[in-house]
C-alpha cells in the first residue's frame, strides 16, 4: 500500500504542474483574445467612420460631386451635379477618385435615383464608380454597406431624389495599395525620397505593369489599379514583409 502511495505521488505532482501550466496558458490566451477583439472593434469603428466621411465628402465637397452654383459661388448640402457624376463614372470606373480616397480601405459607390411616374416612385438612373475589385478569402477582413439620401441636380428646374450607397472593404490588398498610392503622391511632390513599411499578406502579390494593377493571388485573383507605375518585386508567398520603396524617373521601385 505504501509502495502504491509513493507511485501515485510520482504521477500527481508532475500532473499538477502540467495542469497549472495549462491553466495559465488558458488565462493568457483568454486575455490576449480580448486584445484581438478590441483591435477588431477599433477596425470596425474605423470602417464606419470612413464610410460616413467618404459619403459626406463625396456629396458635399466641391472637389467631388457637390453642385457648385455659379450664381452664389457656393455649394448646397447633398446636392450633386449630374455632369460631375457622369464624369466620375467615366473616369473612376475601377478606382476611387482622389477627392475622397481613403488609404486604409477600398470602396465602390452606387447612386440610385428615384423618379415619380404616374403617382408611383420608381428607381431611375443608376451610377457607379470606385474600386472594381476587393480583397478575397483570407485577405478579406470585413466590409460594410452604408447609404445616405441625396439629390441629383439635372438643371435649374429638375433635381431628383436619390440614395448614395458605399460598399467599403477592409482588406490586405486595400491596405497595401493604399500605402503605395500614398507614397506615390508624396514622391511626386518631392516630399520623400525613400520609404519603408511593414506589410502582412496572406497570398502572393504580383504587379501587372501593362494594366498598372497590384494583384493579390488568392484563390480568385483580385487586383487594384495603382496611381503610380511601379517596378514591383513579386512577393511569392504569404507572410510579413518590409517593403522598401523609392522613386526613380516617375516609377516607384518596391523591393521586399
Amino acid at each position, binding site marked *: 500500500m505504501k509502495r502504491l502511495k509513493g507511485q501515485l505521488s510520482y504521477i500527481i505532482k508532475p500532473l499538477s504542474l502540467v495542469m497549472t501550466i495549462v491553466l495559465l496558458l488558458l488565462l493568457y490566451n483568454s486575455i490576449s483574445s480580448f486584445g484581438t477583439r478590441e483591435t477588431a472593434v477599433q477596425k470596425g469603428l474605423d470602417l464606419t467612420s470612413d464610410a460616413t466621411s467618404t459619403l459626406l465628402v463625396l456629396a458635399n465637397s466641391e472637389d467631388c460631386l457637390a453642385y457648385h452654383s455659379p450664381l452664389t459661388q457656393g455649394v*448646397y448640402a447633398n446636392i450633386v451635379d449630374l455632369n460631375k457624376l457622369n464624369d466620375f463614372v467615366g473616369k473612376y470606373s475601377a478606382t476611387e477618385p482622389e477627392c475622397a480616397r481613403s488609404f486604409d480601405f477600398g470602396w465602390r459607390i452606387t447612386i440610385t435615383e428615384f423618379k415619380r411616374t404616374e403617382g408611383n416612385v420608381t428607381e431611375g438612373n443608376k451610377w457607379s464608380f470606385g474600386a472594381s475589385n476587393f480583397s478575397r478569402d483570407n485577405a478579406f477582413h470585413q466590409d460594410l454597406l452604408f447609404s445616405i439620401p441625396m439629390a441629383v441636380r439635372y438643371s435649374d428646374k429638375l433635381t431628383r431624389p436619390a440614395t448614395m450607397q458605399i460598399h467599403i472593404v477592409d482588406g490586405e490588398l486595400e491596405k497595401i495599395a493604399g500605402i503605395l498610392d500614398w507614397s506615390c503622391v508624396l514622391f511626386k511632390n518631392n516630399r520623400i525620397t525613400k520609404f519603408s513599411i511593414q506589410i502582412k499578406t496572406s497570398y502572393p502579390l504580383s504587379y501587372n505593369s501593362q494594366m498598372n494593377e497590384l494583384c493579390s493571388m488568392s484563390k480568385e485573383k483580385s487586383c487594384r489599379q495603382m496611381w503610380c507605375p511601379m517596378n514591383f518585386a513579386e512577393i511569392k508567398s504569404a507572410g510579413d514583409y518590409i517593403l522598401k520603396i523609392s522613386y526613380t524617373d516617375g516609377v516607384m521601385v518596391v523591393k521586399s
Partner: protein
Amino acid sequence: MKERETANKKRNVRKGQIVLSETLLAATEVIISFILIVLVIQLVFQQQSSITIEVAYDSVARDVSTSIDRASAAAGSMIIEQPLPKGLKMNMTIDYKTVIVSFGSLTVRKSFVGLTYTNAVTFTNPSKLCIVKTGNDKRVNVIAGDCTCNPKSDNCNPVCAAQGICQSACVTNVADNVCNLACLQKDIAQGICDPDCNRNVSSGVAYNPYCINPNNNPDGVCNPDSNNIKKGICDKDCYYTYSNGTTGVCDPDCPPSDQIFVGLDGVKYKTSDGYCYTGCANSTATTSQKITLVKDGVCDLDCNATKNICDPDCPNSEACQNKCMKEGEKAAQYPCCEGLIACPGDNVCRKANNPMSCCGNGICEGRPGTQNGWPSGNKTRWETPYTCPQDCQGNAQRPQCGAFGSFVSSVCYRDIFNQDETRIGDKPSWTGNAIAICNSEATKFLDRRNWDINEVFKTVASFPPEGYAYDASRYVNACDRIQNAVQTISSNENYSSSANICCSLDGTGCPFPDAPYLGQKCAGVGYCADHAAAMLSILRTLGIPDNDVFMTFDIQGANCGRHAWAVMRCDPLLRNNPKLWPSICDSNVGQWISVDATRHFVAPLSQTPCVSLGMFWNDKGIYPLTYGALPDGPNGEKRGYVFPTDAVCNNYNEPTPQQCRDQFGVEHHYNDLCSPFKVTCVVPGGSAI
C-alpha cells in the same frame, strides 16, 4: 542476520532517496509555478497596457481624422474645436490625407478622406486642436489651441479668415496656407499679393492686380476674378489657357504688348506665336460654329489664319471679313450682316429695322411653331392675313370696334404704416388710366393673332411667355405709375427676352433677387394689374361682350398676396363665333375662366386657387353698379354684388380671409372700394358690408 541488516540498510537508502526526490519535486513545482505566474502576470499586464496605450492613441488619431473629414465635407466655412485627452504625450503630424500619432516606439497612422490643400504640420503634446475650413479656398487648416481669432496676433490665424475678420498678420506676401479675403483691400492698398489667394478658382470678390508679377509671368495661375480687369500686364497663364478656341477669362491686356507691331497698312498686329487668344469673345456674336472676338485694336495673326475664329480687327480675316450675307442674299453659309435679318421662309437677308420687311416674299411667315414660322422673340414680325395679306391667304375682316365704356380706372393699394414704420394695413383707391379698348396696339396685337381668341390664349399660356414678362420694379411706388394697356401691350409685343421676370430699375428698384435687370428692355412690360388691364382691353377689342369679361383681383397663397388677372365667362351665346369661343369653353359652358397673363395660364376659375375673390370691373364700371344691382335698401341706398354669384374660386388649402386680415393686414376693403360710387357692396354668400 548480516544479510538482513545489509538488506535493511539498502532499503533505508532507497527510502531516503524517495523522500529527497518528492521534496525536490514539490520545491521545483512551487518555483516553476511562481515563475510562470509572475511571467504570465507580467505578460498580461504588459500586453494590456500596450493595448490600452495603442487604443488611446488610435482613438485620438481617429477623432482628429474624423473632424478633418467633417470640416472638408462642409459646404462653406467651418470651425471645429477638438480637445485631446489630458496627460497623453505624443507627437502628432497631419500630412496628406494622414494623421500620424507617435509616442516612443509606438506609431499610429490613420488615413482620412478629404483634401486639406495645406502643408504638413506637426504638434508636440497638443491639448487642443482647432480645425478650420475656409469656404473661399476649400483649405482645411489645423492649428494648436483654441478656435479664437485675435486680430492683433502675430500669426495669421485661419479662424479669422473663416470669421471674415482681417488680421494684420495675414496682410503678407509670404505663403502661410491662409487666404484671408477680408484683407484683400488692405493687400491692394499696400500693393502686395497674398500668394495663398492667388489661384485658379474664383473667390467671388475683387481681383488683386498686384498678383501679376512681370518677373514671374507665367506663374501657373490665371485667376478667374481677373476677368475683364485691366492691370497693364498680360497674364500669360490666361493667354496660353484661353487660346485657340477656349473662351472664359478675358484679359484685356492680352495679347502681350511686346508682341505687337504696326504693319505697313497702319494696322496693329500681334506676331504669330501659335496662340490665337480667344479669351475675349463677343458673346452675342459667337455661335457654336464660330468665335467672334471683341474688337481690341490688335489683329492677332494666329486668329487671322483660322476659319472659325473671327478677329474683327483683322482686315483680311477669313472667318469674319465680309463673310456675312448682304441684303437680298441667302443666309446659307454665313449669317446676315449687321442690321439685317434672315426671313424664315426663304432665308434671305432683309432689313431688320422694318418689322414687315419679309412681307412680300410670297411666303406667309407666322408665329413660332407654324410652317415657316419665326423663331421666338419676333412677335412684331408675325405675318397673318391681317398684317401681310400679300403673303397670307384668308379672310381679314376685323370686327366692328367701338361699343366700349368710359371707365378706365384700376384698383391701387397704398400701404399704411404706424409710427414705428411697421406696416399695419393698406388703403385702396381707384386711380389711373389703365383700360384702353380698340386702340392701335390692341388692334396690332390681334392682327398678329388672326383676331382669334384661341391664338390670344396661346400667347397667354405659352412658356417661356410670348411677352407678358413680369417687371419686378413695378412694386416700387406702383401706385404712382399705373400704366395704360397700350403701353403694356406694346412693350410686351417688343419684349424679346426669354426671362419671364425682369427689372426695369436696378439697385433698390429691383426687389426680387431672381429678376435680371434688363433696363429699357423690361420697361413697360408691367406686372399683374397691368397685364390684367391689357388682357381685358384685348378681349373687349376682340369683341367679347362687356358682361362676359372683367378684371379682378384676389388674395391668395400662404402669405396672402394680392394678384390681379382677367376673368371671362364661357357665354353660350359666343359659341356660334369660333373666333370668340376658346376651346377651353367646350367643357366649361356657362362657367367663368381665369385668363392669367402673368402666371401664363387659362383655366376654370373654380380651379384657380385663392383665399377670396375681390371685385369685378371693366370699361363699363364696377360690377356692383352695372351687373350686380340688387333692389334698393330700406333707406333707398344702392346695393349690388361685388362679383357674380356663380363666380367661385378654389379656396381649398388656402388661409382664411380672417387669417389674412389678422396676420398680414390684407383684405379686400370692399366698403372703401364701393364708397366712391355710393353703393353698398354685397359679397355673394355673405352679407352687405
